[in-house]
């Protein structure tokens, strides 16, 4: 698979969504996500874009009727004219499943906008710190990825999604399974630098032992906590080993607590714009 080109990674904090009423939450979030769409599409044909929003932390809020993602997507559509869909089904790996769906069914729409929204509007202690993965950091991660022009995409046997690796580990032996998946995928992409999720000390130790042979970006758990799908994108945005004029290939990876995982080959170059609120 040709790498998806990273046009933009924007990371910002999500505290402005905490402790507010549902109406205010949707106003603020739709405004933030719509502005990103405006910036990404400025001066370009908007038919070449699709927009997806995903989240791990907004679970009870959605299924309990506090937040209606359909309304959020409608607002974004009204403001940007882009189709926008929401999913939280695959938890931290939702962004990967959404990209796979896009590449398999809309390969001619070359620009993909993804918003990974993690916030804690109710201030639930589970979503701050828990026994499963430790501390959670909450960020809104806005991605603009672009498919390079590739005539082969129209051929049915050469779908652009074939290069993505998606699957499910056994949650009971997740780190073991995940390490094996990493080894398999790195055989396929030996030139790529791995950007994997942040894990707290014990979990990290097990993973680190198995990725030592590959090029990988540092774990930033101490600084951010676990980031529910945003971690690989923060790592790429923070990669100080890449010279501004250099092109570098990354394998962005996420894994969810139920074992869903995804690996996406990407490339950043001198045109890639990356920003992290509060600096890096």
């Amino acid at each position, binding site marked *: 698979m040709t790498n998806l080109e990273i046009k933009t990674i924007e990371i910002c904090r999500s505290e402005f969504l905490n402790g507010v009423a*549902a109406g205010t939450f949707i106003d603020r979030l739709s405004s933030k996500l719509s502005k990103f769409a405006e910036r990404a599409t400025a001066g370009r044909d908007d038919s070449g874009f699709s927009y997806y929003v995903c989240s791990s932390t907004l679970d009870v809020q959605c299924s309990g009727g*506090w937040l209606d993602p359909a309304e959020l997507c409608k607002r974004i559509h009204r403001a940007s004219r882009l*189709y926008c869909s929401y999913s939280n089904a*695959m938890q931290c790996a939702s962004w990967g499943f959404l990209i796979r769906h896009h590449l398999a069914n809309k390969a001619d729409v070359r620009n993909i906008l993804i918003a990974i929204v993690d916030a804690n509007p109710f201030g639930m202690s589970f979503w701050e710190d828990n026994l499963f993965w430790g501390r959670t950091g909450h960020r809104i991660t806005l991605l603009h990825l672009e498919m390079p022009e590739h005539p082969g995409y129209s051929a049915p046997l050469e779908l652009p999604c074939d290069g993505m690796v998606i699957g499910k580990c056994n949650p009971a032996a997740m780190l073991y399974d995940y390490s094996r998946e990493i080894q398999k995928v790195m055989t396929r992409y030996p030139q790529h630098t791995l950007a994997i999720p942040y894990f707290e000390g014990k979990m990290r130790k097990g993973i680190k032992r198995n990725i030592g042979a590959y090029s990988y970006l540092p774990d930033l758990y101490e600084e951010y906590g676990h980031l529910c799908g945003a971690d690989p994108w923060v790592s790429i945005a923070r990669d100080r080993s890449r010279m501004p004029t250099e092109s570098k290939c990354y394998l962005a990876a996420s894994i969810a607590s139920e074992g869903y995982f995804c690996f996406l080959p990407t490339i950043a170059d001198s045109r890639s714009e990356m920003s992290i609120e509060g600096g890096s």
Partner: protein
Amino acid sequence: MSVAMEGFHGRLDIAKRRREFIPALLMKAPLKEDELHIPLQLRFNDRVPMIVSFYEYYRFLDRLVATVLQKDITRLVLVRVKMPAVIPLPRSLLDSRVAIFYDIDTESRELIARGSEHLCVDANFKLYSWSAGDNTFSVRWVSPVGRTLGKEALEEIREVIDTLPAIFEYSAGICHGEYG
């Protein structure tokens, strides 16, 4: 644009519920005792009964999706899932021909505009006590090129829906509208 739509829609009915031993799966909300103000902020109807569990819901989705993919009834299925992480999704839902969204209407509209046929599985079941589900569902074939499902395909789908404690009916029609 004229779009052929057909399928089944209905509602779970507690009177049709048969006795069955299933794993007890109560919603294990990640809340502490001093956080019980949180469910009070949710907007669910406590008069809507829970008729099926997560386990049965996923079993239903698994049977339906596996059937339509194995029998080649469709090459793309959109499925509505509102609450992740209670139990793992069945493997059939991870198939690359399946896409899962909270609300599948927007995605369906985009696919219609692109001329892509698909099956929408839209079940809004109340699966735990704070869920805003209303126990309605629809399984809808959508064809922007006007193709209808054959009798056999409809029968395959009906057989799976028949495993639910539900009342449902078939409907078909042509929708005219702007999907661009």
